């Protein structure tokens, strides 16, 4: 247990970086993902095309490859991403937004047809139908899957450890390498911090999911 007492500051500072990565990338991904979902259901074919291409490309690309692109390939284009933290935020939000877009789109599709029909019948435009009628209802069924996307994002922040960001996992790896005989314990400590976020969030998603299901 001395291991934890001695290294608590390192764990905590890593945990804070993980939380910052999650919060910032999560916020960017939610905004950009919702825009993508709106583009995907829009009447303009070009916008649909862009959104479909983006989502398909990013969903079928490993996150590590996105990081790899920003860190090693982008400099060849003369784009020098600020190394470390903000590169990780860009990679994580670009990747996660594709999954956010898919979750929001399936939420839009879950709203009963009659709602959109009624909205159109009283003369609302596309933007009004989406903004005033469909999206507010879609949000309810979208929240549980979105929480799951954000849980996955929390776990995905660990990939940043491979690209020079000292977040929770990288901090734990340092501690494990410094104390080889207690490596198992050091990594278990990292696991506890991740579980502090992921398990309550998972339970919350489950509860909300059941609530939404009953309301229907």
């Amino acid at each position, binding site marked *: 247990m001395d291991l934890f007492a001695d290294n608590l500051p390192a764990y905590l500072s890593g945990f804070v970086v993980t939380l910052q990565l999650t919060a910032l990338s999560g916020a960017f991904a939610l905004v950009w993902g919702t825009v993508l979902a709106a583009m995907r259901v829009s009447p303009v*074919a*070009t916008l649909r095309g862009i959104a479909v291409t983006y989502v398909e490309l990013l969903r079928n690309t*490993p996150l590590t490859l996105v990081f790899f692109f920003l860190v090693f390939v982008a400099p060849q284009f003369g784009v020098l991403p600020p190394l470390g933290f903000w590169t990780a935020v860009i990679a994580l939000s670009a990747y996660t937004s594709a999954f956010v877009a898919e979750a929001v789109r399936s939420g839009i599709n*879950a709203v009963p047809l009659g709602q959109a029909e009624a909205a159109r019948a009283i003369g609302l435009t596309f933007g009004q*139908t989406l903004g005033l009628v469909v999206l507010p209802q879609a949000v309810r069924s979208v929240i549980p899957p979105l929480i799951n996307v954000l849980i996955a994002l929390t776990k995905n922040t660990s990939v940043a450890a491979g690209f020079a960001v000292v977040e929770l996992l990288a901090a734990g790896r340092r501690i*494990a390498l410094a104390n*080889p005989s207690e490596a*198992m314990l050091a990594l278990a400590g990292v696991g506890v911090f991740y579980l502090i976020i992921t398990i309550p969030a998972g339970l919350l998603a489950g509860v909300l999911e059941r609530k939404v299901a009953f309301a229907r």
Partner: protein
Amino acid sequence: MSSVLYDEPGPVARRRERIGSVIGAVLIIALLALAFRYADQRGLFGADRWDVLYDPPKNQSVEDVWRSMIVVGLGATLRAAVVAAPLALVLGLLLAMWRTTSIAWLRAPATAVIELFRGLPVLLMMLFGLLGFGWDAFSSVVFGLTVYNMAIIAEILRAGLASLPKGQTEAAYAIGLSRWQTLLLVQLPQAVRTMLPSLIAQLVVLLKDSSLGFIVGYPELLRAMQTNAQYFGQKYYVALFVLGAGIYLIVNISLTRLAVWLQRRGGAKTSGKVARDATLPPVGGPGGAAAGAGGTV
């Protein structure tokens, strides 16, 4: 489908949409052209940036470069995935059966195992293998992929079992099958078929996650890209990345298409419809159920 949100367009709206689409397309082409010119000015399309793919410098043969990418790189990626996938499927099946036993206190450990491994990053599991157990990179990668995906697969199968009509179990008991027979002969075959698209989507995730091997020092596709770029020179990163990313996209998109095709084929049958009941986690597009189980991403 998308027309639910707006009226079937009339002649005026259709013209407007066409104009909007054309303007959008022109804008995109202009943007692409700008990006193209910018890249061209930086010499990104010069032969000296791409010849690594057809006439590599340093007296290396074309075959060597492609072999290092496809046979060695993609080969290692696929090897990790091919070893981990059956293990994850079998262990996930066992966990799902354990998780659904009728005795409550027996279920608890299975629930704990699933929640534990679902909530931890795959990379952490790989580090457990590498630093905790002191295994080599390959075993660590396979270990990480297996324990994470077995938990997700167990959840997918559990959702599949829960989606079956009660009558199936009741009928099986009524004709005198034991609990195990009911599970193995009646419930599981249907659950697996219902959940086949989600299972395949999860295998795509597994394949994608094998790229984490790059971080724990397993020489897979990303590492092959990096090694080549370091040997031939940084300027080849673009060409090698295009090849590597292309390989990933081709493999993953084919698997995703297979899942969609299976779903459409299964959709016509009753077992497919059951799963789409509104009260259950959505089995929507590829990865829908897995996303519900906290997996896909």
